[in-house]
Structures are given as structure tokens and as C-alpha cells.
């Protein structure tokens, strides 16, 4: 789970909302770009990831309707609401009896107000650093080294969110400076095992833009991951 201050504040907000509305069974927030920001303790990461995957599938097919704003699923025993708030989505799974107006208050008043307040207090430096789900490719051979390799676009994106003014400088000065900002990444498996690695830009042109992370074989062995697996990768600046 994301541990930056923004996520911590949203996590506290969700905890308090869940206390105030006992009909809420599960709640979590994810970004437009697939990364989960925070969630309540009762919802395991696998469920959140499955939900995210299903939602993204539906989002792709719903272009015919226009920009997706919300999804509501009513079952015989409960209901689930996914609401678009700025560039994130709030998921609330509730009992069948949860009042519509309460859900509306949370999605349209409480969470947006918290987000707006956060932005007011910290206009530039309090940004979300989103972990990314990347596909593993193994690096083997004598020159594999100890560093993992990630697409430059992803590194740029992280740099932008970590420190916007520095990002602008890096853009002006060239790509090398990005390396100075994102030195390490944390690679995390969905079972929670993780490791910290040095990071470089992917040097194989054919592998660029494929949402891939190239990991030296020995690190793959340590983490017990193989080519094609999906891992969560978070920048450490």
C-alpha cells in the first residue's frame, strides 16, 4: 500500500468514514493509472487488484458512453459504488440498506473537500507517488549487474510527481538528470515480499513502452519471481 502523506491522510479519512457509516463494508481508492492509493484493513490487496482489473476492462469498453464517471452495482445483499473524484476512483462496498444520500455525501462532499483542503495546504510538493504494476523480464548474463531497468517514461512520470520543479529542470537538461532523482525502486510482490534495487532506464529499444521491468536473475531468484509475473514498483527518491 502507498505510504506517502497523501495516502496516509486519505487512509485516515476512510477509517473515520467507515466508523461513521457502519454500513460500509469495504472502501478503497485507486488512481486513473491503475495504482491503489489506500484501502481499509478489511479489504485484501488481491480483492482490490481484481476489482481494479475488472474496472479497467469495463472502462475500456465504455468509451461509447463517454468519460466514465461512476459504476453502481446492486446485488440482493449489498451494493458497490465506484465514483470518479478528480483523477482517482473511490470504491465503496456497502450493505443493501446504505442510504443513497450518504453515499452521495461521501463521494461528492467529504472526499472532494478533503482533497481540496490537501491541495490548498500543499499546492506543489504534496503529490501522489503512484506505484506501478509492471511485467517482469529477466536480465541474465555477465553484464546483468545489480540494477533493474524501467522505461524512461515511467521514471519521468515519477519524477514529475516527486518534485515538479526538479522535473522541469531535468526536462531542460536532458534525461540523465532523471536518473539522479529516482535512484532506487522498491519491487513488491502481491504476497508482500519486497526488495530495494537501483534503477536505470531500459536500454533495449524493443522493450520500451511495454510496461516492463527488467530484473537481474539473482534478484528474481531472491524474490521468487519469473518472467511474465506482475510486480508492484514504487520509486524511492
Amino acid at each position: 500500500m502507498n505510504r506517502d502523506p497523501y495516502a496516509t491522510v486519505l487512509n485516515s479519512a476512510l477509517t473515520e468514514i467507515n466508523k461513521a457509516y457502519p454500513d460500509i463494508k469495504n472502501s478503497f481508492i485507486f488512481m486513473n493509472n491503475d495504482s491503489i492509493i489506500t484501502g481499509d484493513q478489511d479489504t485484501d490487496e488481491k480483492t482490490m487488484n481484481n476489482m481494479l482489473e475488472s474496472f479497467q476492462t469495463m472502462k475500456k469498453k465504455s468509451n461509447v458512453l463517454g468519460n466514465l464517471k461512476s459504476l453502481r452495482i446492486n446485488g440482493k445483499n449489498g451494493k458497490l459504488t465506484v465514483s470518479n473524484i478528480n483523477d482517482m476512483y473511490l470504491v465503496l462496498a456497502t450493505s443493501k440498506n446504505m442510504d443513497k444520500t450518504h453515499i452521495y455525501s461521501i463521494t461528492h462532499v467529504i472526499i472532494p473537500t478533503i482533497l481540496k483542503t490537501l491541495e490548498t495546504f500543499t499546492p506543489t510538493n504534496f503529490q501522489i507517488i503512484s506505484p506501478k504494476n509492471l511485467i517482469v523480464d529477466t536480465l541474465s548474463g555477465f553484464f546483468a549487474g545489480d540494477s533493474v531497468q524501467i522505461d524512461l517514461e515511467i521514471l519521468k512520470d515519477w519524477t514529475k510527481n516527486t518534485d515538479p520543479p526538479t522535473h522541469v529542470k531535468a526536462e531542460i537538461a536532458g534525461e540523465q538528470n532523471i536518473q539522479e532523482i529516482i535512484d532506487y525502486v522498491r519491487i513488491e510482490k502481491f504476497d508482500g515480499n519486497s526488495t530495494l534495487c537501483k534503477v536505470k532506464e531500459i536500454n533495449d529499444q524493443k522493450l520500451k513502452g511495454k510496461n516492463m521491468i527488467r530484473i537481474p536473475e539473482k534478484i528474481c531468484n531472491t524474490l521468487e519471481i519469473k518472467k511474465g509475473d506482475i510486480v508492484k514498483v514504487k520509486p524511492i527518491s
Partner: protein
Amino acid sequence: MLVKKFETNDTLYDVEKMQKKLQEIKDQEGIIGYILRGSKSASIDIKDPIKIIDYAVLSSTVFDVGNDITEAFQLGELDTIVVESEETKLVSMDINNHRISLFMEKNVDHDKLYKNLK
């Protein structure tokens, strides 16, 4: 307006009854069209025939996703699914093993339509 209909030996009475209701709904203001799927039949009536495949794919995906999510979050048997964009929405429901997807403008009261169909 394009109407496509494929039927085998489905419970013809149920399908026709449902279709009659849907035809009435379709003529109401703000309704873009509908897709009705029975166990062995399907009918589609969408105002914009160019988008018919996109609507059909979305309708099918929404039911799949809806079932996955209701199972994951233990919501019980699927009742309705509402997918809302800035201007339009899709309301999908399962009534007596008939999967109905209604496409409409956002301001249409879909609760009223659901009650009518049920």
C-alpha cells in the same frame, strides 16, 4: 432506427412481453436504445446503428464484470448495474434470466424504468 432480432425456441411469450415493454420505453424521451438477451435469443434496438457493436460489447462486458464484482464482494445475486458517463448511462439488469441493457441520457429516471420492467 435499426432492429436486429435473433430467436430460436426461447420462451417466446416472455421474450415478446419483455420486448413490448422495451419498445414502449424506447419511445420515451432520452432513451438511446436497448439490448435484450434471453437464453437463446437476442434483440437489439439502438438509435445509432454504427455504434451497435460497441454497445453490444459493453453490455456483455458489464454483465461479466458485474458478476465478478458481486462474487468478490459477496453482494449476492446481481440485481442492477449502472454505468454512468458525463452525459449518458447504461442500466443493465437481469430479469427472469433475461439480460437487459438500457442505454439512455443521464437525466432519465432509471429506477422508474426498472420498476416498469420488473
